[in-house]
């Protein structure tokens, strides 16, 4: 581990991105999950989008 006190100007790690700009860390996180957990991830995302849509629909038009 880098001692940040010994190196006051540490260089951040390179992001784990492939040549097409795909975030490989995100893929590895998904692969670490069980299929049931992946289903939960997409469900939570869908719920968040539905919540945002509902909030936008309830905003008065100016």
């Amino acid at each position, binding site marked *: 581990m880098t001692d940040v006190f010994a190196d006051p100007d540490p260089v951040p790690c390179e992001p784990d991105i*492939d040549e*097409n*700009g*795909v*975030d*490989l860390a*995100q*893929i*590895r*996180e*998904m*692969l670490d*999950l*069980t*299929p*049931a957990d*992946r*289903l*939960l*991830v*997409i*469900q939570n*995302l*869908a*719920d968040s*989008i*539905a919540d945002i*849509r509902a909030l936008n629909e309830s905003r008065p038009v100016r």
Partner: protein
Amino acid sequence: MNRARYAEVLRRLAANDVEFIVVGMMAGVLRGAPLLTADLDLVHRRSADNVSRLLQVLAGLDAIYRHDPRRLRPRESHLMSPGHQLLATTHGDLDCLGTVGEGQTYEDLLDRAPQLNLGEGMSVRVIDLPTLIELKEKAGRPKDLAALPVLRATLSETLKRL
């Protein structure tokens, strides 16, 4: 649009012994691709018994054709056809596909759709990543092509873990 309840739709299909394969972006997600999708696509076996079981589940989900203002409900003849039935249900959008790609049926895809355990004793067939990539390449629509880099990278990372 009703809120999507993916697990509940899959649970009802599985509980009613409907023979189907999850395809599309949802298959990619279940196989580990960090993608977003708004619907559930499946290819069903087009036998009379299976279509009857599927119709029963669709009735319970109050399924109607989502692009038709007449609120038409799917019927046996629709689900026996090779076409795509794009439905809205009380649990989100559900596409029942008679065939995909170049006329590939449930039976054609069976060997390339191993079962995945989705918890609570539920196992469903989900198309494998190489076949999904093949289907997306052939479909060639902008939304399919946009997902390809993520699907290919997911396949590559999956193979490293074998």
